[in-house]
């Protein structure tokens, strides 16, 4: 067993950016803490590969975004995130998450979805118990986020909003154009953000939860289904 060994030379362990507070092997791990009941709330950050999910988490998380490949078997080989045809059974999954402590008894977790299409089945697991979701889109590559929009419209009950990540702070398309291109239902909020900016991220997250409050006001949470047509990317032809 490698429990007390030094850092894993294979680099497959917890990411180096994560402060390792390894529980001491000798002696009890410190004094007992107050067992305060803690409520945790989860927001899912979705979108295609490279739209800025990790950046958004990083902008507000009090811990470096934890990138774990722990989802499936550690015995499996890492698969190139941009695709490797032989990766169908040997997958490790990267998921990024961050934490924001809001009060001694209240903590918000942000979970980035694995962007790669073959990991969609895990979205169900990730979304279970989520209070809301943000789908990040990049107008230069709108198509990479279509799947996320489809998922939240058709396969999930989690209320969601869509946020256009303004790379370089420039808005290249007007929101109605983007809404049209994404075939977004009128009742799905569409906003802009700068995923690098904490204030902007706070704004997006509060909008997300405000939308959840709207959607769930005065009733249970029925299925939120959409009738979205097939998505194409008219902006891609620029």
């Amino acid at each position, binding site marked *: 067993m490698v429990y007390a060994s030094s850092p894993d030379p294979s680099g497959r362990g917890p990411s180096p950016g994560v402060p390792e507070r390894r529980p001491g092997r000798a002696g009890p791990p410190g004094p007992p803490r107050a067992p305060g009941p803690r409520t945790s709330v989860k927001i899912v950050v979705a979108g295609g590969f490279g739209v800025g999910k990790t950046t958004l988490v990083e902008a507000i998380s009090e811990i470096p975004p934890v990138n774990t490949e722990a989802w499936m078997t550690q015995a499996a080989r890492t698969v190139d995130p941009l695709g490797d045809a032989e990766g169908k059974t040997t997958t490790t999954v990267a998921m990024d998450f961050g934490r924001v402590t809001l009060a001694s008894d209240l903590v918000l977790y942000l979970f980035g979805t694995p962007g790669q299409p073959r990991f969609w089945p895990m979205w169900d697991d*990730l979304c279970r118990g989520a209070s809301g979701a943000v789908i990040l889109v990049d107008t230069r590559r709108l198509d990479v986020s279509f799947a996320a929009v489809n998922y939240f419209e058709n396969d999930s009950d989690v209320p969601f909003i869509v946020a256009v990540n303004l790379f370089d702070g420039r808005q290249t398309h007007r929101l109605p154009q983007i809404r049209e291109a994404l075939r977004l239902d009128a009742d799905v909020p569409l906003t802009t953000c700068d995923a690098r900016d904490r204030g902007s991220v*706070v704004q997006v997250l509060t909008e997300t939860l405000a939308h959840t409050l709207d959607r769930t006001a005065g009733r249970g949470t029925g299925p939120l289904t959409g009738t979205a047509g097939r998505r194409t990317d008219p902006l891609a032809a620029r």
Partner: protein
Amino acid sequence: MTANPWVRPYVLTGGRTRGRTHLLVHTVISGRRYDAAFAERLLPEARALYERAHATSESVAELSAHCGVSLGVTRVLLADLAAGDRIAIAAEGTSPYDRNVLERVIDGLRELA
């Protein structure tokens, strides 16, 4: 610690892929009374989780990541520890749409901005 590459993950759980309770990735786990003798008897993976749960108040996903135990295995092992009353699962059964909680989160976020 890191996962032991020589042990198939679910050997650690006796072949079980589901725990007694299904833990969400963001469910916060905390320790109960720390029992060193009990920790000694655990397999390394379960022990790492048990000890970290007593040193911190972290989510299932964090425990999994920090202890290097895959998420599925982490869930089963934590569910076992909880069933034996060795660790505490926080706020089980709270609705994710609880208005009071969401309003508190919104207020808390605004203070961060």
